[in-house]
């Protein structure tokens, strides 16, 4: 998969936002189709994805290391030092080690992906991400045959993250995927949004994006990736196993114990907007449903 398409452009080279918006309809279809060639054509629904405004995407965030209110991350995340940045890749890999962010970027192919983003809190956005497929990064480190899961860890910097003073979660934030989920072409490491470097409050300098899972699976500001044989612990599952499972696939038929997941509020649509029906696998069922064939999704929520 790696380097199947050579891109010499970087985030800063991508069309500016105004121009981007003018052609967003075209891009929405095109970008969603990128990388899906091998998994069957362009999903029909991708064509009407309207990106949420840059302002909403960058001011309405859940990043509890910077505070639990939606506006806290944009206010506090500037404190986070993102350069230099290294990602430790370890565990069942051929080439474990500290990978500098610049070295990773030099080898990766950055693409634009416009994805639906569905939070477990029953709101949703459409985000134009820039990033590379996680599979390419894992292949760079060389996945060993015994590896079955991928564990991720967010930076923990008490001096730069005012939110970690409070035991809202057991810091650092950790997440995990099954290896086939991690290797899926829809799964990306995002390094930008709207063609710009990803803002700190959105998880700079690199974060996971798994568009068919609830947003909290898409872990931010990653410093460690570990290939493991056993299912790794995940933060929200540790905090409340009854409410947050390891898989956390978007599923309108499985309610969160405290609220329905059947529908969602669309961010940016105003005070009187109708709720939108939530789609199975957040609308990516054609691409990912086969990963879960034979599994009881109610038990493995």
């Amino acid at each position: 998969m790696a380097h199947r398409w050579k891109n010499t452009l970087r985030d800063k080279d991508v069309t500016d936002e105004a121009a981007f918006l003018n052609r967003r309809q075209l891009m929405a279809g095109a970008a969603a189709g990128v990388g899906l060639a091998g998994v069957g054509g362009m999903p029909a629904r991708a064509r009407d994805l309207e990106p949420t405004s840059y302002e909403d995407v960058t001011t309405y965030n859940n990043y509890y290391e910077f505070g639990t209110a939606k506006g806290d991350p944009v206010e506090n995340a500037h404190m986070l030092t993102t350069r230099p940045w290294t990602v430790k890749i370890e565990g069942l890999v051929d080439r474990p080690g500290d990978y500098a962010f610049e070295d990773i970027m030099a080898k990766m192919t950055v693409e634009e992906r416009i994805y639906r983003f569905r939070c477990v809190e029953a709101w949703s956005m459409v985000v134009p991400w820039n990033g590379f497929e996680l599979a390419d990064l894992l292949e760079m480190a060389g996945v060993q045959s015994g590896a079955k899961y991928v564990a991720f860890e967010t930076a923990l910097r008490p001096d730069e993250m005012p939110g970690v003073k409070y035991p809202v979660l057991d810091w650092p934030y950790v997440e995990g995927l099954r290896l086939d989920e991690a290797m899926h072409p829809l799964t990306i490491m995002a390094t930008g949004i709207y063609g710009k470097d990803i803002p700190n409050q959105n998880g700079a300098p690199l974060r996971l994006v798994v568009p068919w899972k609830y947003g909290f699976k898409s872990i931010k500001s990653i410093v460690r990736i570990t290939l493991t044989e056993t299912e790794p612990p995940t933060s929200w599952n540790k905090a409340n196993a009854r409410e947050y499972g390891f898989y956390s696939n978007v599923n309108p038929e499985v309610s969160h114990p405290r609220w329905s997941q059947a529908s969602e509020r669309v961010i940016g649509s105003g005070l009187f907007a109708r709720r939108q029906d939530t789609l199975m696998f957040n609308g990516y069922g054609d691409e990912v449903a086969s990963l879960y064939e034979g599994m009881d999704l109610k038990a493995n929520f």
Partner: protein
Amino acid sequence: MAAVDHINTGLRRVPAWPIYVASLGYAAWMLWLGIQNRLGADPVKVLEHEMGQMALYLLVAGLAVTPLRKLAGVNLLKFRRALGLACFFFVVCHLLVWAVLDVQRIGEVWADIVKRPYITVGMAAFVLLIPLAVTSNNLSIRKMGAAAWGRLHQLVYPAAILGGVHYVMLVKGWQIRPLVFLAVIAGLIAWRFLVKRKKAASRVQTAA
């Protein structure tokens, strides 16, 4: 004249009606901001949380009236009815925003009330407050008699606790703010029971 007396003399000249006007005005202003799309990315949640939070602030304010009078000598008794009714007004706003603008589907509103414990708890608090709001007038006090009226209005204690628990339950993880609210509410109520116990104890002593 002590400072407290100055404060109380000043307070006697302040009417209670501005509390009603300010509450109505604030709710209307927030709704207006929402209509103007000036409440940020998720206006429904902002409006919903703001109304709920105002109700909690006013609940705490109402519960603080008696301790303030007994401990500091500051008398805010004449404002308590307005604080309570304003609190109820914001609870109703909170409920309406949740049902009409957030959940939107009447079947799901009912399902949520029955199925979701934090909503059940919030609804229970609302239901407990209804008789208090209905009897927050002089006519009711006269008709019921002050003692019975006072007993009925002790329902505000369980209602306040349930309101605080509702807030703690609805957030993700253990967050500070809701816990502080609940602790303050519990503290204000616990103080009353401690005072009562002490009084009862001293009565027993003098009787002996």
